[in-house]
């Protein structure tokens, strides 16, 4: 079980200084075990601050974060242990690789957990398999590998802790389309096999439309929308108003509706749009 509840979470940076800035305010969310949710919003909308609360890297100014009903900030030990349960992969994680070999880098998290050597070995191999890191690379230096490989190694380093909740901040940033698909597939495979809850911060609405079960839209430190892709993208106009992109298919649907082509509200993938257009055509043809 790994259910995350945030209860009126607020975070203020540099409190009581002239640089005081409220990053998130009053965020109350329940993310049930096993959910695959996407967090979207502008840079500076509070997403990054929010996710760093979920593994106690940041402590709330007010409010609480509960994991399976227990406050993760209740004491120093809880704050440390939550790191194993809630794995957080930062943006451009390849810049955090530091060990001499790929194997040791992936093993860094599990070693910090003070696991036995065999246990660590098992986890490293398992994590490498999930992320498609070839064991032939284990003794190589991570620094001499390609950008895509480094990214996968960095993600393996977090998966090796077997987190029950896996949070990734823009895991596909800067990758080409092939690299993006591969990384997302790896993450989904881990979720399928482990039953973990997965939260992904993304700027790519087309990706989000494809994979998310739930979309949480951040705006100006609060939550602007929260629902299934159907619910969120059927209000594409509102997303546009916040200044966010919508999936290309939804954008086309908006443009077609403006031209008096009747299309249902919940059109946001290529297949849905094609289907809706063909239906509209048949309807008119008869």
């Amino acid at each position, binding site marked *: 079980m790994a259910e995350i509840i945030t209860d009126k979470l607020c975070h203020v940076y540099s409190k009581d200084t002239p640089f005081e800035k409220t990053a998130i305010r009053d965020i109350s969310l329940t993310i049930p075990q096993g959910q695959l949710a996407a967090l979207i919003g502008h840079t500076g909308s509070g997403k990054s601050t929010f996710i760093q609360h979920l593994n106690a890297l940041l402590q709330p100014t007010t409010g609480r974060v509960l994991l399976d009903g227990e406050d993760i900030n209740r004491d120093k030990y809880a704050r440390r242990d939550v790191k194993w349960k809630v794995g957080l992969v930062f943006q451009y994680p390849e810049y955090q690789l530091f060990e001499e070999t790929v194997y040791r880098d992936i093993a860094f998290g599990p070693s910090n957990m003070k696991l036995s050597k065999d246990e660590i070995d098992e986890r490293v191999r398992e994590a490498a398999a999930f992320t498609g890191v070839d064991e032939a690379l284990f003794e190589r230096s991570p620094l001499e590998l390609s950008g895509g490989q480094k990214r996968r190694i960095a993600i393996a380093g977090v998966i090796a802790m077997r987190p029950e909740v896996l949070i990734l901040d823009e895991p596909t940033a800067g990758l080409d389309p092939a690299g993006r698909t591969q990384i997302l597939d790896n993450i989904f495979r881990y979720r399928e096999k482990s039953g973990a809850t997965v939260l992904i911060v993304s700027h790519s609405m087309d990706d989000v439309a494809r994979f998310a079960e739930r979309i949480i839209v951040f705006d100006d430190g609060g939550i602007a929308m929260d629902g299934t892709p159907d619910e969120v993208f059927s209000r594409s106009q509102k997303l546009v108003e916040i200044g966010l992109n919508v999936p290309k*298919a939804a954008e086309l649907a908006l443009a077609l509706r403006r031209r008096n082509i009747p299309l249902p509200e919940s059109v946001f993938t290529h297949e849905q749009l094609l289907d809706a257009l063909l239906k509209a055509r048949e309807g008119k043809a008869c």
Partner: protein
Amino acid sequence: MEPVIVFDNVHYTYPADEKESLCGVSLSIEKGSFVAVLGHNGSGKSTFAKHMNGILVPDEGRVLVEGLDTSDEEHIIDVRRRVGMVFQNPDNQLVANVVEDDVAFAPENLGVEPKEIRERVDAALRQVGMYDYRMHAPHLLSGGQKQRVAIAGVIAMQPDIIVLDEPTAMLDPQGRREVVDTVFSLCREKGMTVVYITHHMDECIDADRLIVMSNGCVMADGKPADIFANAELLRREGLEQPETARLLQDLRASGMRLEGEPLSVEDCAELIAQVLQSERSRS
């Protein structure tokens, strides 16, 4: 149209590598055109870009910039003044602590008179919409703003050609839009030649010409509409087909008669709406 950059059978291998990063690239870039270059990571597109201002010089073959050979040490500053370069990471190309001092860096290197530098700096900052930020520290700007300052820093050299190597790869959608709009305005309004390297398909749809690179070779070279209609080629190169092109293709496959390859959302919607409405009136 006259060519401003000519690649003549260019081969290049990085010193530590065995495999060629450019294997015999020959092409020329027309004055005033907007040329987009697509390719997956490691396709050689960055190597291609770095040849345009002599940061890298060919092992074999040659690159001419407005008639100047980039391998000619004597003319290297002339080449670099003509070809401005903007790179991927905005943080690693700004040299000064204040925006306007950074923009002044290139003209200062060229020994331009102080009064003229001032004029060029102000004009360049206005061109990219960053004039109001001229006294700011770069590290406090957003990614898109930093990248626009980098572009201003290049414009202040008054180059004829500007080459951008994945300038939006590290930016959020908002920043990407700012940069793409700025670059298009340079080409369309100021008549600058632009070579724009990216792996975002949707940034290329308004380009005059699209070059697809793979394994150090040019795999396709033509109008964006023609290349994006070629689903087979795109799939082979690991590139995504823009939604507009994909939709038109699938609608045609189900028997709709759609003429042309409009790539922008608005144009595409317009075409589909027109055809649907004319079908209705006919029936």
